[in-house]
């Protein structure tokens, strides 16, 4: 009797577990796309995922530009229960790989020809020791300069092509009582302007040596001193109340003609568009003076998950993220451009066309570079050390030589 009961119990358990073990692909996704346009963009992916039979568990963690999400992620990984996909970017993908937390999705990537449709340097960020471990979502360009069209034309000025021209234009504007550069005094915004200046003055090789390889020669070079000199000049083009201002308030200053220029990534375009401004007519976009293209690529890193349905879900998600439809719709909402180069850009605006053309050209020319200020080129501690120096210099009377010495020391200290 007892034996029979035991057998029955075991059998029931098995059949139960069999019936619940496969409920279709599942994925839990940790991200911090919670603001209006971004949330809409994620909803697109969510819908596509469920149309393909998947169950999506949303795990949005807002706050602190992803700091809060990273804290949540650390707790989840430490407890051995990582989400399937996490919004991560740049070298932090490799950092998590070194912690042994990332999965290999090479089969999805190979099946869908990722290496052919993605620019080489961007694909590099998605690989961990040669294996694919993340899926790119978009490409933001950092080195943009935005301008109020009517402010420029009514003063007989045009978009500057060199930094000398920029300085001359800014001085002319200042003489007329217009703030030349709308800027928010937050460390990351200082760093954004700094890297655009560094790329413009030093060129692509210099930028790569200094901010990707952290080569001491480049960091201590006269070129770096010139970069800090230009930053000191830029400081003079900023209004008095810039400290702590949010980037979108700076964008609004350009929009209403209070200021002429802003140097900011292409999320600023979203602000212009949301206010009903037309690119080319109300506002102008061009790359900051100099060669090259600084990119900031958002991506989903794929974490090791247990269970068949979770692994299936992860693969489905990876496939959809790099799929043409999602790449198009998401980026239309977010103001960036698709990471894959074969998406038709018919519905995109003028600035996105410029961005895409420049990305392809610079990919061929070897000047497609990762943004250091937005965590694409360096690990957190090193990037932070550079930003500390940049913002300390920008907000004080430090000389360029002192800044360079401080930069070298800070980077040594952060290793």
């Amino acid at each position: 009797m007892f034996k029979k009961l035991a057998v029955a119990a075991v059998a029931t358990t098995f059949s139960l577990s069999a019936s619940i073990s496969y409920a279709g692909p599942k994925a839990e996704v940790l991200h911090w796309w919670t603001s209006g346009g971004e949330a809409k963009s994620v909803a697109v992916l969510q819908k596509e995922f469920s149309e393909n039979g998947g169950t999506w568990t949303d795990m949005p963690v807002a706050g602190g530009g992803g700091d809060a999400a990273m804290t949540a992620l650390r707790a989840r990984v430490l407890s051995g229960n990582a989400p399937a996909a996490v919004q991560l970017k740049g070298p932090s993908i490799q950092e998590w790989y070194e912690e042994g937390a990332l999965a290999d999705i090479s089969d999805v990537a190979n099946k869908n020809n990722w290496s052919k449709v993605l620019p080489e340097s961007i694909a590099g960020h998605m690989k961990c020791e040669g294996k694919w471990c993340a899926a790119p979502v978009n490409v933001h360009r950092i080195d943009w300069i935005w301008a109020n069209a009517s402010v420029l034309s009514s003063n007989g000025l045009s978009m500057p092509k060199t930094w000398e021209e920029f300085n001359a234009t800014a001085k002319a504007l200042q003489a007329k009582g217009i703030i030349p550069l709308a800027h928010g005094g937050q460390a990351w915004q200082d760093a954004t302007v700094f890297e655009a200046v560094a790329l413009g003055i030093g060129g692509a090789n210099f930028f790569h040596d200094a901010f990707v390889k952290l080569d001491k020669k480049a960091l201590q070079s006269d070129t770096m001193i010139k970069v800090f000199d230009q930053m000191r000049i830029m400081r003079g083009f900023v209004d008095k109340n810039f400290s702590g201002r949010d980037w979108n308030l700076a964008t609004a200053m350009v929009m209403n003609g209070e200021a002429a220029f802003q140097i900011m990534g292409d999320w600023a375009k979203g602000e212009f568009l949301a206010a009903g401004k037309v690119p080319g007519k109300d506002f102008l976009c061009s790359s900051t003076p100099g060669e090259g293209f600084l990119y900031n690529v958002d991506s989903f890193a794929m974490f090791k998950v247990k269970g068949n349905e979770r692994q299936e879900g992860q693969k489905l998600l990876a496939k959809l993220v790099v799929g043409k439809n999602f790449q198009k719709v998401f980026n239309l909402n977010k103001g960036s451009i698709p990471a894959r180069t074969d998406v038709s850009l018919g519905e995109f605006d003028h600035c996105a066309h410029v961005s895409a053309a420049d990305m392809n050209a610079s990919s061929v020319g070897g000047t497609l570079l990762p943004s250091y200020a937005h965590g694409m080129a360096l690990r957190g501690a090193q990037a932070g050390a550079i930003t500390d120096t940049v913002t300390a210099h920008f907000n004080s009377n430090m000389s360029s030589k002192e800044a360079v010495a401080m930069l070298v020391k800070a980077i040594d200290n952060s290793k």
Partner: protein
Amino acid sequence: MSSWFEKHLPKIVLAPSFIAIILFVYGFIAWTAWVSFTKSRLMPKYDIVGFIQYDRLFDSPRWDVAINNLFIFGFLFILISMFLGLIIAIFLDQKIRIEGALRTIYLYPMALSLIVTGTAWKWMLNPGLGLEAVIKNLGFNNFTFDWLINPDFAIYTVVIAGVWQASGFVMALFLAGLRSVDQEIIKAAQVDGVPTVKIYTAIIIPSMTPVFLSAFIVLAHLAIKSFDLVIALTGGGPGYATDLPATYMYTMAFSRGDIGQAASSAIIMMIVVFSVVVPYLYSELRNKNDQ
């Protein structure tokens, strides 16, 4: 059985919270100390490598700024809050008519969150929006008050907002202290014709030493762990001119993935707190033993 239970009941009741405190306070202090001796970056590692994190910490110009700011802020914040609190308390103690209402008004800032205080002062001190703009609009075109955006003075704006928030609370402490002074002595002094100022400086204030100590301890630990006020008021800026050890630690732990640095800075903060609190505890405990 029941007598055993009765005898041990207090211990049984206290045990859970005791265990929780051992684990979650002292356990994690020990954990942080351990991690501060490792090369932990994104995730904690447990191989001890020595004082490398402390070397990095003391080499970092940003930490220098944070520690200097802590001393500037702590010193001024404690001193001014105590001074203002004492003055207001003495004025309120003059048996004035609407003392209750005034007391509430002065105490009220304490009811606000530091985030609210910081945000409100941020607007008031912003040269383009607040005080400076208002006075300029009144016709005084040369007036400037741009401490908030001046890296050399920004830390003093944190002091202003902190003092505004805390001095009412210190006033309440002192007022209670003033009221507890033996009225007989004061009356005796008045009969002897001692001037009021002298009564305060020679009799009342010296007899309030314990209140000064409590006020000092409360203010000191507020100053050392102060975080939200800086975040709301200046965001640590301009640059990192108003960084405090707590904001430094937060940046390292949560923005930069540098847990080792964060742990070592937390341990230094703890040492600073202990160097203030331990002498106090020591003197308190010794007094009790004397009695």
